[in-house]
């Protein structure tokens, strides 16, 4: 590769008697630039990837994973909880839980983590949209996958908007380090873009019945989530035209004929625990997989946040009655940590005979934390552990301590029905169709066939306010602990008011009533801290410090009060 040339030159220099022999060495490189031009061999670059269908499938998986994996615990429990449905009850004060008790400031690591992952997901989606066309595969596949990426980009922006309000909108992937900083986009523009993207993707993605599972973006998922976005946008911006959009979009799902309520409320959640699908009811889910704690962003951690504090032996697949012996060998594994306590407000929201109460709020407990002897909860006890996701229903053995494959419900059919009713009520007042959809949800709650009219259970509504008031409580009853309550309180503009109402309720509750009656693991009830700490500024989260400190385009302006 190197060439050495030696030249011997004799030069006569002034004042010198002899010739001076100069040797000039020249080195010519046969390929100088090649020597220094080294390309990576153990990874590829975005520009070289995206060449075939396989590549697209791998890339779209990451688009899903990056943001949706945040539902493992952040977006399923830490962020949406701390409302009138329930609160973080333990005294344990690691920063992860401070979000639920409104103790965090803008520096909290979990704010940063969720923020950055949602944006990472947006960037991956943008990259996908920019590069997908270069792949060598059929246009129909490209269209479908691009539709999914487009929807997910919009969905991540929506999640950001629900917690942070106005946020930077990223519609191009990041390539240039000199233009990293962009300002916040006003909420009105943000929603307009989200709605536009979602509507565009609606035509591109598959029908849900063709898939038979719910972890992917489908037409029904797009239409249902679009209804949710529009209701939220209507509430946040005051623009009534969003109700029309919400109503029409929800109606498409209802009229598609692909959906129906599951006859059993509790089966909806047991299915999620057991990796079973009923796409008629559960329209869109976050797909969690496996149970390896080492890879906890593909498995779900949220089920261990709920429930009575207990521990299930992992090795015993036939029954859960563990023994001291099993414990003694250190083989126990699946854990419910009982971080969350539901409130008397939620308890009181349920009417007598509403089966959802006993499923949402555990009506039993265990005798001690490591024996699985069941003790029934005292009747009418109002502060209970959360029963929506119960680890004893898991069937994938061996069980593991924190992580499992429970899917998170992002959109259920009952939500579509209630969203339709709400949007239609805002536009037209109580109409027969809307009332029927409301009653369908109600009938299931009382254990009767949702599709058959039932004089004793069905409700009638004569005024818009009456239906709206009912819907507010019905949504709490139906979706408690499904990351919907906080969003609802926000869009109705009653978040702060409701939290202060809760403070009064808790402050007037005797301390002993704040501990589940039969609990082996009482902890110290710190119910009131959540509501005392809650200030008007907590209606929106602060833009994380990690963003504020480097993104100069934000001009150091955070959300009010931060």
């Amino acid at each position: 590769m190197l060439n050495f040339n030696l030249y011997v030159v004799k030069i006569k220099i002034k004042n010198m008697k002899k010739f001076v022999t100069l040797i000039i060495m020249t080195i010519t490189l046969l390929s100088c630039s090649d020597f220094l031009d080294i390309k990576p061999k153990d990874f590829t670059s975005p520009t070289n990837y995206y060449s075939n269908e396989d590549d697209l499938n791998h890339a779209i998986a990451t688009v899903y994973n990056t943001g949706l994996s945040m539902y493992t615990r952040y977006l399923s429990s830490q962020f949406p909880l701390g409302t009138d449905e329930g609160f973080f009850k333990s005294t344990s004060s690691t920063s992860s839980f401070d979000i639920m008790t409104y103790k965090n400031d803008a520096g909290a690591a979990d704010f940063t983590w969720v923020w950055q992952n949602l944006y990472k997901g947006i960037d991956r989606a943008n990259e996908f949209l920019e590069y997908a066309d270069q792949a060598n595969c059929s246009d129909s596949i490209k269209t479908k996958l691009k539709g999914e990426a487009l929807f997910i980009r919009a969905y991540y922006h929506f999640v950001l908007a629900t917690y942070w309000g106005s946020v930077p909108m990223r519609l191009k992937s990041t390539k240039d380090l000199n233009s990293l900083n962009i300002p916040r986009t006003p909420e009105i523009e943000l929603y307009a873009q989200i709605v536009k993207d979602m509507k565009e993707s609606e035509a591109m993605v598959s029908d849900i019945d063709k898939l038979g599972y719910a972890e992917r973006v489908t037409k029904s998922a797009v239409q249902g989530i679009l209804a949710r976005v529009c209701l939220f946008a209507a509430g946040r911006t005051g623009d009534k035209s969003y109700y029309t959009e919400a109503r029409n979009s929800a109606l498409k799902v209802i009229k598609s004929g692909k959906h129906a309520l599951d006859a059993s409320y509790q089966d909806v959640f047991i299915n999620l625990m057991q990796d079973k699908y009923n796409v008629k009811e559960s329209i869109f889910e976050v797909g969690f997989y496996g149970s390896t704690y080492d890879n906890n962003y593909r498995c779900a951690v949220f089920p261990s946040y709920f429930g009575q504090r207990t521990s299930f032996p992992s090795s015993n697949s036939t029954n859960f009655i563990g023994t001291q012996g099993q414990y003694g060998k250190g083989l126990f594994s699946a854990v419910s940590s009982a971080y969350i306590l539901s409130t008397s407000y939620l308890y009181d929201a349920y009417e007598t005979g509403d089966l959802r109460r006993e499923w949402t709020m555990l009506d039993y407990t265990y005798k001690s934390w490591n024996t699985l002897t069941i003790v029934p909860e005292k009747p009418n006890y109002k502060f209970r552990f959360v029963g929506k996701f119960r680890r004893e229903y898991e069937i994938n053995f061996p069980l593991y301590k924190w992580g499992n494959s429970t899917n998170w419900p992002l959109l259920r059919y009952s939500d579509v029905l209630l969203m339709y009713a709400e949007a239609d009520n805002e536009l037209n007042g109580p109409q027969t169709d809307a009332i029927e959809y409301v009653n369908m949800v109600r009938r299931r709650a009382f254990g009767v066939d949702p599709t058959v009219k039932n004089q004793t259970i069905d409700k009638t509504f004569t005024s818009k306010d009456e239906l709206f008031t009912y819907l507010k409580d019905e949504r709490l009853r139906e979706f408690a602990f499904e990351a919907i309550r906080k969003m609802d309180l926000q869009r109705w503009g009653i978040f702060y008011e409701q939290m202060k109402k809760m403070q009064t309720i808790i402050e007037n509750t005797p301390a002993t009533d704040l501990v589940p009656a039969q609990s082996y693991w009482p902890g110290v009830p710190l119910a009131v801290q959540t509501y005392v700490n809650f200030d008007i500024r907590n209606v929106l989260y602060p833009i994380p410090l990690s963003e504020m400190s480097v993104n100069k385009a934000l001009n150091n302006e955070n959300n009010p009060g931060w």
Partner: protein
Amino acid sequence: MEKTKLIILLLIWCAFNSLMAQNKQISGKVVDEQDQPLIGVNVLIKNAKIGTITDINGRFVINAPSSESVIMFRYIGYSTKELIVGENKDLNIVLIEDSKTLDEVVVVGYGEQKRMDITGSVGSVKTSDLTKAPVATFEQALAGRIAGVNVSSSEGDPGSAMNIVIRGQNSITQSNAPLYVIDGFPIEDFNANTLNTSDIASIDVLKDASSTAIYGARGANGVILITTKSGKEGRPQISYDGSIGFSKEIKRMELLSPYEFVKLQFDLNPITASGTSNSLSYLKPDASGIPTISIEDYKNIAGVDWQNQVLQVAPMQNHSLSLMGGTKATKYSVSINYLDQQGIIIKSGFNRLQGRLRLDQIVNEKLKVGVSLSYSQTKTYGTSSRFDDTSGKDPSFGLLYNVYGFRPVNGNVDMDQFLNDAIDYGSNETSTILAFNPLAYINNQTRNIYQSNILTNVYGEYSFNKFLKLRVTGGLNRNDNRNENFYNSQSPQSLTVGGIIRGINGSQRWSQSQTTLNENTLSYNRTFNRVHSFNGLIGFTNQKYTNQLFGGEAWHLPLEELNVYGLKQGEAQPLDTRYDENSIMSYLGRANYNYKQRYYATASLRADGSSKFPALNRWGYFPSVSLSWRLSEEKFMKSLQFISDAKIRGGYGEIGNNRVGSYDYFSALALSTISGYSYGNSYQQGATTTSIGNENLKWETTKSSNIGLDVSMFNQRISFTADYYKKNTTNLLLNANIAPSSGYTTARMNIGEVQNSGLELTLNTVNFSKRDFTWTSNFNISWNNNKIVALNDGQSNMLSNMQWNQNYNSTPLYLAEVGKPIAQFYGYQWNGVYQINDFNWVDNSADVSIKLPDNDPTVPYNRRTYTLKQEVTDNGSARSIIKPGYIKYKDLNGDGHIDNKDLGVIGDPNPDFVGGFTNNFTYKGFDLSIFFQFSVGNQLYNANRMLFEGAYRSDLNQFASYANRWSPETPQYTNYTPGGNGSNVYSTRTIEDGSYLRLKTLQLGYTIPTSLLKSIGITDLHLYCATQNLFTWTKYSGIDPEVSINNSALTPGFDYAAYPRSKTISFGVNAKF
């Protein structure tokens, strides 16, 4: 011109012949201190053009013009001796070895220079001092030897690498390690374990830009030049250096006695501690639940001392055998070395087998060729002292956690089971965290690192004439690594607890790195008219590095007896494969000029092209200039007789640091199993862009200036060097924080600026020099002031976390703030504990008849329900759970609440000054060397105390200091009560002064008189006893103040479960045959 030539010819003529006019013939013999004849010593008559050299027997004959003539003996590496001829005819001259003389040759980049001619800042260390320390590598002996060269180890495990920082840290997120140049071969990630200290002829450290600029884009962190021994002309000489030694921990942590431990358990949870049904009961109830033992009885129980079980007096042996010699044309040197060092934690250690060959051959008067070849293989083995993977896992998975924390008494558990089972069955039921038996921990895992290294260099040197020389070298440096890990069924890392589900598992990782080098230099060396000395060098070099790695891991291995070789039967985990490649091509040039050895000027320039940077920024140019003035050569100084030499130096240069990944300017996309998604219950692997490239990336530039003064006095009895430097590093290669909304959190950018300035003083003295008794001293001290000038675009600070314990991993402990050093400790101000008068209380007695009024001081403590007074600040926890004796912090913003607004700088990990002090004595055959090292003003974060001085968990033993904790009866103590640690935050409570003075090396030796040895064929025999780390004076409460686990520029001075440092005593022999 003609004249110059003639003079040179004449001089040479003189050197080999003594045909000049003669008046008085003198003969004699020159020997060294060991009575060995010195060959080739220059013997000169002062102020006359007469000279000769000694022959193979050290003998010479010279003719002096008169008896008043002064005769001089000059020999490199020895003090020059002068004496008046007088009436002597036969002289017996002893030259004293002194590498600090001005004639000493110092190796500089691509050449060597006399100490006197140096214009930059170059530190040297005597290898004779280094070999006195009973340690495995030269780096370990280097600490405190050279001003401005800060050498420290993170902890005490055998075979671990040292952290060397020269003149402060330039780089915030990138490596600050110097460039090593081994016999001319530049190596960025040199492994000191591959080199035998006995093979080293010299170590020179280039500190300032004017001397390192010749290394261009790699010179900014300083350069350590190591030259290995080459053969000398003379008869073959066989040397054997051998030692055996023993190491022992320098300190053990005092733990609670069994009695104090049990008492603590009753403070923590009297119900479980005395319970009847569970194994934790310390009262050993019988079948009917009646205790069979009382707390007081534990005063007479010795308990299990786990430190005793795990620590050992560790043997060490080191043997080197070498053969050296040569003729005028051929010089050779061959050596082998074997070192075996066990760790003071059982089943850990390090061993090395190393061989070296060096051959230099003069082919003809023009051509010289040579080859050096070194091979070494090492094995480092043993468990880590803490758990390597702290993400999401509990600290109880670490060894030292269990050595300190595993309970000392068995309670209700059978003693045999207690001592032998891997898990403490009785431990902590409520937290689901187990404790692991430290012995079982060690015995159930295999962790080996095998490394082998080949370093070879071939050169040819062609002299066109006596001024011009071409040197072409080619070299190869190859490292093979194999890491083996295996955890059997009884190992904590295999048990299905704490979420770990790997079962019996193991892994193997193989990697091979290879560097090839070609260097071509042309040098011109000439003195004109006797006064103008000129030395020029130009060169061209190219170097290529490749590294590949292959690793496999498997879980749930069915056949554990196969150890790591049974991986194929297990559940295979994703393979790890990596390939890394970079190259660098350079042109370099340097010119040295001096006038009458009085005024000196040096200029150098290097152009480096590096594949690590995009084409646009590939080439960097690194210039330097320096000047020096030897005042002592001036007439006005001649009157100051006591000054032997005085020189002022000054230089400026720009140098680079290219320590980034080979491919950092590319955006990377990779497939991984954790970025995928599950649809329809099947998992789709994900492909994700993992990092964003930077097409403007370039090296970071350090602009450095240096002013120095070298003075030696009283015939070089006292020599003093002072240097002041200032370095500004700009375009930092920063792993910079960027807006997370971009989809990335960091990007490799050239952003920010760091400044280091400092002062270094070195004093060498010959305090006493008589034939029978000599005493020499070396003292060096250095101050460095490190400051961040700028970070990313107006960013005012960066916070960094220490990864050591899942409960703290996301809490920042370090602050890097503009205007301050790169690292400062960050946290809360500790304010003792809450006292009873901070509270109101009510009598919670259920019996109304005995209920006393609120706040009545006579209410028994166990009947009080406390409420923190409204005006008293909380500690970050909810007010309702704070009790007397709980930890308390200072409320800096006065809002009555402890939160993030009360965070601030809580300590400084940077020393004010560091240095070393060496004294060497000889008395007749005895020699004594005493070396002290010190570091003053740095603070350490002692995280051990967060776990072991606070009882954050039941059944976890604690440091003895926790016996003195707050209670209503002992309110004077500031250790909080069990359970009173509040939230998981860092505070000044566990920040300690890390200053120390250490008697680092002490060696006492005796040289057997040659007369006694002749009969047994030994020419030289030296016996010694050497110690390392014998005494340390410090206020630090941990095991050792020289500690910094997970060390980096951003995270220094952190102590948690560091491998305990040892002190060593060894007995050795140096023999020559």
